[in-house]
């Protein structure tokens, strides 16, 4: 990490933010001051500690049900990270496999996979996710699957492009001449050479999925209550904007900072791992 920070201060900052969010998510029971779903109507709508009538007991204030905003933020990090990381990983598994097959095998396999990717890209993804989640029910598993559906083709397209080029390279040709199996060539010679961009895409996709998950949650189609999610906290805070702005402001800042941190890290990794990708946005 120190190495990363020296090479790219932005990536270092990103790593720091992401590290903090991960710690918050993992150590939530230790860091939270109160139970995130404990209601206390006598303490509803208390302001953050720096306001005259705020207290350190609820450092970031309380919401309309008297729940502690700070503790809910800490626990909310769990859901955001879990869905982001798992869905991006699942999408990567499918996308990389599809991209390798399309690029290396070519022909009809290539056509079918790429048309599927086109089809997937044509949908306004959030609309598809909304429809599917509304139909199948909003729970962790469904959200992860739906988010993975919105991300696999991004890996597939990049990996396909790279393996098309790799297929013609000497070391791959040599392996083939030696009689190696397609599966072995893909696993031993093509895959390792596409991993760097895949890691970069994975990072940036985690950020995009966290944004999308929070949007779904905001619309009421995220992980159901009482589990605290940043998106739903924001939606609930909307009704108290004028009297208790902090309920909506803090979860938004949490999403912004987390996504910003991951994007910094992703950009930094891109520069570090794969200078060829640097020009692309």
């Amino acid at each position, binding site marked *: 990490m120190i190495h990363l920070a020296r090479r790219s201060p932005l990536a270092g900052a990103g790593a720091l933010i992401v590290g903090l969010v991960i710690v918050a998510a993992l150590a939530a029971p230790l860091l939270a001051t109160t139970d995130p779903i404990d209601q206390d109507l006598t303490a509803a709508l208390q302001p953050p500690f720096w306001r005259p009538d705020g207290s350190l007991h609820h450092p970031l204030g309380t919401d309309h049900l008297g729940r502690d905003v700070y503790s809910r933020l800490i626990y909310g990090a769990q859901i955001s990270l879990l869905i982001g990381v798992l869905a991006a990983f699942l999408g990567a598994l499918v996308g990389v496999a599809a991209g390798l097959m399309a690029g290396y095998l070519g022909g009809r396999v290539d056509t079918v996979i790429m*048309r*599927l990717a*086109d*089809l997937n*890209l*044509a*949908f*306004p*993804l*959030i*609309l*598809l996710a*909304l*429809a*599917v989640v*509304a*139909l*199948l029910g909003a729970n962790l598993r469904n959200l992860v699957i739906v988010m993975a559906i919105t991300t696999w083709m991004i890996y597939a397209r990049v990996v396909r492009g790279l393996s098309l080029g790799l297929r013609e390279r000497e070391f791959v040709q040599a392996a083939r001449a030696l009689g190696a199996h397609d599966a072995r060539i893909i696993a031993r010679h093509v895959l390792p050479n596409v991993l760097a961009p895949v890691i970069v895409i994975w990072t940036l996709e985690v*950020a995009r999925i966290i*944004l999308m998950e*929070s*949007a779904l949650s*905001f*619309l*009421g189609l995220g992980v159901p209550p009482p589990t605290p999610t940043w998106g739903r906290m*924001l939606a609930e805070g*909307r009704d108290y*904007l*004028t009297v208790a*702005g902090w309920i*909506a*402001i803090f*979860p*938004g800042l949490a*999403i*912004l900072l987390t*996504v*910003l941190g991951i*994007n*910094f890290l992703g950009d930094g990794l891109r520069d570090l791992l794969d200078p060829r990708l640097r*020009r*692309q*946005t």
Partner: protein
Amino acid sequence: MRAYIAGRLATAVLVILGVSIVSFFLTFLTGDPAEIMLPPGATAAQIAKFRAEWGFDDPLVIQYWRFLKRAVHGDFGISLRHGQSSLPLIAARLPATFELTVTAMLLAIGLAVPLGVLAATHRGGPIDVLAMGVALVGQSVPNFWLAIMMILLFAVSWGLLPTSGRGGVAHVVMPAAAIAINLMALLTRLVRSTMIEMLAEDYVRTARAKGLRELFVTSRHALPNALIPLVTVIGLQFGYILGGAVVIETIFTWPGVGLFTIQAILNRDYPVVQAAVFILATAVVVINLTVDLLYVWLDPRIRVT
């Protein structure tokens, strides 16, 4: 050239067919449509009658064929909630969404191009750092949160803009800005990086060597070429813009397709959801096709190959 256009058209038709299959199967994801569409207390006889009436007992392929035949004629069935044909319901709300998304795109392009060009021409300077900072934050900000913060600031605190609804320019500013922010950030980075490349090209050096003024070199020689990749990216981003509109319309109660679709999804109004998904996805396909063809026209090098 002809072959390219024909191929591209064929692909678009295939993708639209795929879109129709997905829209069709959306209804079947939950299992039995009869159980969803009928009120909870329906008897077995009622369910059987409903299934027979709506043709849910036929093989899926036949049902799909029927759906497709109807869809071609613009018939996606009757909205369960509104009791009217779903397509006209959606069509009536398209202009509002069109107004919002086009304004958002123009806003994003209008801000991103000058910002990106300035960043490229002042590379490494304070303007560049500022522009990239704006872009990085703009890419990471949740647009619905920005929308709420804008409402808090411009509508609630300062009373400058209306909080919701559709009307004049004042109504469209905030929702369009909220949708535009992520695209603006992406385009700023893109314009900057392509401009930096273009400014290093030989023809730019030649133009400078001829003694042309820097402003002229930038705007007439480098910029037009830097804008070509922008066209593709904007086309590809159209799906995201529509997605953004879905969320933002609900915040500002903007009477467009997005708000209507969200309501349909929450009410489980399947004919409307099917029609909306089909129409919006088809719109994206058509826009992408147009952009690809425009690209061929813009960039003569592609025309030849």
